């Protein structure tokens, strides 16, 4: 364990990867002090932590907020501890230090407990359950099996599927440019005077959206014919900005 920690610190290298959170890092710094863990000295600890943090920030600006929060708390404690005691101040650096020590001790304790829990003999590794599944034939009564995990995950899945339902776009009767082009071409040779483009739009179009689509398609179709040199187009500013077309000779 000790070796692992030392290795962790050596490979620290301005990266916080090796640590599972800032308290974990503090704990490792405490262990590095090689003193009784119950006699944690906050001041040198704060200095080491801030030093590491300073280096790390230079390397990686996206430091986890949790590391910075502890950094701020330690800076605060440090400044309070170094300054002459302010009787007026409500904040007691001693209390903050104690709380921090408590947290470090607690994590230390649980890391030890984790080790002792996992060093116990374990089922399937150090001792075994019955290997062969027995199948008894007679008088089978089915018992349906579902556990809380399954129940909740099934429900969670339904809910998340609901949140991500697909958007379907309703079918609509839109007029295509191809259709407009075919229609317009039929009339082109007969347009010997300036005529409104609207005149060529088929009758009986219902609905605002449909009308807009027909008009746009006819406009695009007319541009296509201009490109081919078959018609000319102009906008009549006196007459509602009406678009007018004429056969190109």
């Amino acid at each position, binding site marked *: 364990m000790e070796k692992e920690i030392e290795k962790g610190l050596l490979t620290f290298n301005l990266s916080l990867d090796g640590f599972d959170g800032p308290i974990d890092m503090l704990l490792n710094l405490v262990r590095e002090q090689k003193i009784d863990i119950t006699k944690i000295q906050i001041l040198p600890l704060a200095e080491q932590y801030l030093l590491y943090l300073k280096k790390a920030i230079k390397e990686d600006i996206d430091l986890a907020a949790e590391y910075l929060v502890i950094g701020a708390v330690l800076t605060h404690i440090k400044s309070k501890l170094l300054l002459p005691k302010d009787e007026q101040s409500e904040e007691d650096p001693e209390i903050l230090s104690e709380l921090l020590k408590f947290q470090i001790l607690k994590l230390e304790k649980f890391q030890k407990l984790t080790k002792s829990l996992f060093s116990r003999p374990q089922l399937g590794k150090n001792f075994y359950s019955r290997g062969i599944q027995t199948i008894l034939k007679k008088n089978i009564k089915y018992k349906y099996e579902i556990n809380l995990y399954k129940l909740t*995950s099934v*429900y969670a899945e339904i809910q998340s599927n609901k949140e*991500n339902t697909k958007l379907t776009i309703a079918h609509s009767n839109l007029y295509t440019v191809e259709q407009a082009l075919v229609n317009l071409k039929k009339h082109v040779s007969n347009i010997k005077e300036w005529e409104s483009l609207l005149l060529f739009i088929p009758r009986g179009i219902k609905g605002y959206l449909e009308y807009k689509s027909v008009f746009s398609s006819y406009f695009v179709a007319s541009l296509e014919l201009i490109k081919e040199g078959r018609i000319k187009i102009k906008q009549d500013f006196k007459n509602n900005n009406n678009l007018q077309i004429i056969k190109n000779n």
Partner: protein
Amino acid sequence: MNNKSEIDQKLKLKILEAYIFAAKDPVDLSSLKFIESDETKLNELVNNLQNKFSDYGINLVKIKNSIAFRTSEEVSGLINIKQEILKPLSRAASETLAIIAYHQPITRTQIENIRGVSLSRGTLDQLFEIGWIKPGRKLRTPGRPMTWLTTIKFLDHFGLSDLSDLPGIDELKKSGLLQHESVLFSDPKDEIEE
């Protein structure tokens, strides 16, 4: 036989016992050389074990060149009476149960709306038969549709003391159960947490 080899024999018998017990399939005699390399002695050991368990509720049975523990025929019939076979609840039934649990009282049509698919006849019947759901009051809407509720047996089965102990959706999200969230729309904050 001296004392030393007696102890040795006893330990070997124990190892044999544990090994056969824990193995997933009947154990081939040839794979037991690590306990006793001498074939005659190994057979002797197996016979000893077989004799030891001959009048037990579990017997050592020989199957060709393999051996395995089986419940004795004498008592098997007496256990069978109570033997229950676990069968996973179907997907449709699991979903229906979950929806009833979280939305009760709820009608059949409302369940179908949530699942987006119609319920086959057997699903509610099955849950009712198992004893996990029961009919609740009828709704005061046209047709007076019947509602469904979960039962005490349901709470028992899932080890819940109260319906309010069902994990909430937020908690499910936090514990990672809502994994099927769309990647496109996920909150960038969540990505960092990973």
